[in-house]
Every structure is written in structure tokens, then in C-alpha cells.
């Protein structure tokens, strides 16, 4: 960070600090502590996110989005300020309890979850002579309440794991987020020599399909991959996805729009489910186009063979008939 940018940042942080301090004069957070925390996030999160030098505009965007009062409260709690803890407890505990109860759904003890979270937030571990409070990891980039939801979610996951020691975290998160067993491209075992031709044909189309899908997938932008994965792998509803981008000031919304070259008739309009659907449709049209062109062009398949490849996933679920037809032809 050059000297001018540093001076701008120092001044902006001092202004934010002054506001927070006015709002909560008895939290005992010093300007040094506040500034150190903000600079740490700038260095650790912003500067490291790209090899390009950090600009004043990027710092301004970061500071404009900063949940300064939440960060102020978190820093005070991390330092063990009694008044701040009182405020935190009054403002957030009831919400945390309801959230934990909703999340646990009989699988974990919500009281235990919240008890553990409070202990973690206060911090019982001492590192280099200083108490390590979980609050110290909050950067103010999102709301404190959103951050608390994440902490509680992980605490519930940990408690669930403790009660299901035979289940790995991967398996558990898969069960939670991605449903039960999925179809896969794994080759079914042939049950005899009579099915040799069928197996060869299956392997040929399977390999062609996977290659074409890889080609199509690699052509996608990261945000398209993410949207499709959230929709089809994690089974989020359009309503849930649209929450990510519905706020006009959401950087993700601007980020997606820039990459998808979507023109906005009304920039202040909320993004609805139909918009997300259109984004998904657009991405899928492109994937399907690349997929078909790859099969027909690079791999030289005819239209009926392309159709076979498209039907491959459902064929894997339904059985090998499709390959038998092909082998017979």
C-alpha cells in the first residue's frame, strides 16, 4: 500500500472509529485496536485476493461495506468488556437460541450448542499469554448476526459428528447438503461375455460424454459454475440463490452482472427468482451448445449418437438397454 492510500485509509478508519465510539462510548475499544483489526483484514483479505496493487477505490468499497458497529462490539467483547458483553447478550442471545433450536432439530442439544458457542466466543484458550476469543476472527465484512449463524452451524455440525463418530464430515455434509446416493458415471460391471459389445459401446459413449462435459464445464465462468452447483448439486431453491444478489449494493450482484454482460433496465430493481433462472438458462444453453459441438466436431459423433450421450445419465439409472440397442445397430 502506497503512502497516499495509507493516509486515506487511516483517515477513513479514524472517521468510522469516531462514529462507533460515539455510539458506544463505554466499550473501551481504542483507536489502535480498531485500526489494527481493520488493517489486518485489508492485508489478509483484500491485498492477498489479487496480485494487482490495492487501490483507494477498493479500500473505499471495503470500508463502505464494513459493519463497523458490529466490529466495534466484537472487539470490545474480545477484550472482555463487561458492558459490551451485556449488550451482546441482550441483542443476540435469544436469536442465537432460536437459531440453534431450529438447526438442531432434536439431533443436538441447543442449550449445549449455545453454551459451547459462548465459551468459544469468550475464549478459554490462552495463546502467547493472551486469551483467544473467537470474536477476534470476526472481520466486520458481513453482519455479526450472519457470522453468529455460521459459528452456530459449525458448532451443531461438530456436535453431530461427536454423536456419530463413524460418519466422516464429508459424508455428513453430503447427507445434509446433497441428499442421498447419486447416480454416477462409474462403470457398471458386465455380467458375462455376451455383454462385451455392449460394454465396449458403453465405454465409448461414456468416455466421449465425460470429455465433452469437461470441455463444456471448463468454458464456464466461476460464477456460472457456482450458480449451477448451488442449484443442481446443493439443491438450493431459486429464492434462496436470489438472496445472494437481491440487494442492489451486493458486490456479488455487480460481479455477476459484469461477467454475464447483463444489461439492467432498472439498476435499483430487486433481482428476483426469474432473473436467476434466466442466468441459469443462459449458462445451460452455452454448456449444451459446447457439449454438442464437441461431440459432433472433435469426437465425430452423428446426431443419434449425440442423443445417446445426452441420455447417458438416465440410462445409467435405468439399465443398459440403450447400449443394447446401439450394439444391435
Amino acid at each position, binding site marked *: 500500500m502506497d503512502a497516499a492510500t495509507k493516509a486515506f485509509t487511516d483517515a477513513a478508519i479514524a472517521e468510522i472509529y469516531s462514529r462507533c465510539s460515539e455510539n458506544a462510548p463505554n466499550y473501551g475499544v481504542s483507536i489502535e485496536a480498531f485500526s489494527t483489526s481493520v488493517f489486518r483484514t485489508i492485508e489478509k483479505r483484500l491485498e492477498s485476493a489479487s496480485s494487482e496493487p490495492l487501490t483507494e477505490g477498493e479500500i473505499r468499497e471495503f470500508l463502505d461495506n464494513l459493519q463497523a458497529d458490529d466490529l466495534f462490539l466484537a472487539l470490545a467483547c474480545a477484550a472482555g468488556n463487561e458492558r459490551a458483553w451485556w449488550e451482546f447478550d441482550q441483542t443476540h442471545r435469544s436469536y442465537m437460541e*432460536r437459531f440453534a433450536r431450529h438447526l438442531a432439530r432434536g439431533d443436538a442439544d441447543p442449550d449445549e450448542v449455545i453454551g459451547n458457542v459462548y465459551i468459544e466466543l469468550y475464549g478459554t484458550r490462552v495463546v502467547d499469554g493472551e486469551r483467544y476469543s473467537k*470474536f477476534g476472527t470476526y472481520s466486520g*465484512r458481513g453482519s455479526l448476526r450472519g457470522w453468529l449463524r455460521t459459528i452456530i452451524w459449525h458448532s451443531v455440525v461438530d456436535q453431530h459428528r461427536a454423536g456419530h463418530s463413524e460418519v466422516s464430515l464429508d459424508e455428513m455434509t453430503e447427507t445434509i447438503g446433497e441428499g442421498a446416493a447419486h447416480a454416477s458415471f462409474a462403470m457398471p460391471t458386465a455380467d458375462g461375455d455376451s455383454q462385451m459389445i455392449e460394454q465396449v459401446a458403453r465405454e465409448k459413449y461414456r468416455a466421449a460424454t465425460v470429455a465433452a462435459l469437461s470441455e463444456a464445464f471448463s468454458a464456464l465462468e466461476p460464477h456460472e459454475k457456482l450458480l449451477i*452447483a448451488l442449484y443442481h448439486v446443493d439443491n438450493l431453491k431459486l429464492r434462496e440463490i436470489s438472496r445472494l*444478489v437481491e440487494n442492489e449494493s451486493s458486490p456479488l450482484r455487480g460481479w455477476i452482472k459484469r461477467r454475464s454482460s447483463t444489461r439492467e433496465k432498472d439498476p435499483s430493481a430487486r433481482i428476483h427468482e426469474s432473473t436467476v433462472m434466466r442466468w*441459469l*438458462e443462459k449458462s445451460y444453453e452455452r454448456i449444451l451448445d459446447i457439449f454438442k459441438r464437441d461431440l459432433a466436431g472433435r469426437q465425430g459423433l452423428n446426431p443419434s449418437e449425440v442423443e445417446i450421450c445426452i441420455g447417458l*445419465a438416465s440410462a445409467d439409472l435405468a439399465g443398459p438397454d440403450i447400449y443394447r440397442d446401439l450394439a444391435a445397430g
Partner: protein
Amino acid sequence: MQYIDNIDTRFQDLFAVYLRDRTNALRAEASTSHLDEDTISAFVDGGLTLRELDPVVAHLADCGYCRTSTAALLRLEAEFAEMAAPAREMQPESAGLAEALSTWFAKLFGSSAEGVFAHGERSENDTKDGEKAADDNPDTNVED
């Protein structure tokens, strides 16, 4: 599975299977480098800057573990948005937990804290008194 209008559903099935296989394959060879809680919650809250989004979105597109957490939090966030809570919530709470926390706070901040942390019982006068007391005894900062 939920489908996208106007796109061959067979192809959507196919691509979904491909994505799941790919996610599982990446998970198996994962470097175990994951997004931290602060970054995931900031992403879900829409709090990341444009500069931060590139690496985070690229990571989420490939990492099933982080995406599963993100998806779960998005779901929960949507559910709880409809239950928007007032700043001062006076909902009935677990007596056991309240007692445990009260005792815990008392140990941390001294016996007087029991009164301070009696849940939801602060009056305006209490506030002023408390603020005055706190002003008289400024806390020392410990930066973690």
C-alpha cells in the same frame, strides 16, 4: 431434482451427475484448504468486495465442502429472514441455559454481573447507571 425451463431435462440430469462426480473426486483429493467461517458468512451476507469475490467464488465452485456449508447457511438465512427478530428480544428461553450463562457471567465479571445479566430486565435508569459505572471504570483492551 429441480429443472431449468427450456433446457432438455435429460441433459440437466447428465450435467448434475457430472458435477456431483466432479465434486466428489475433488473432495477425495482435496488439499483440505477451506474458506474460514468469517469469509463464508461474509459471502452469504453479500459483504465481500469485488476484489475478494474472484478467489472465493472460484473456490466455492470447486469445493463441495465449503459450498455445502454456504448452501446450508443460505437456506437457513432465508428461513430466518421471515422471522426477523426485534433488537431486544423477549422470547421465552431455556431456564437451564439462562441460569448457566448467568453463573458463567458472574464468574467472569464478578457477582454484581448476575443483576446486570438478568435477561431483558434493563430499565432506562439501569442503562444510565450502568453506562456511568462503565465510564468510571474504563476497560483495558486486549487485542486478540
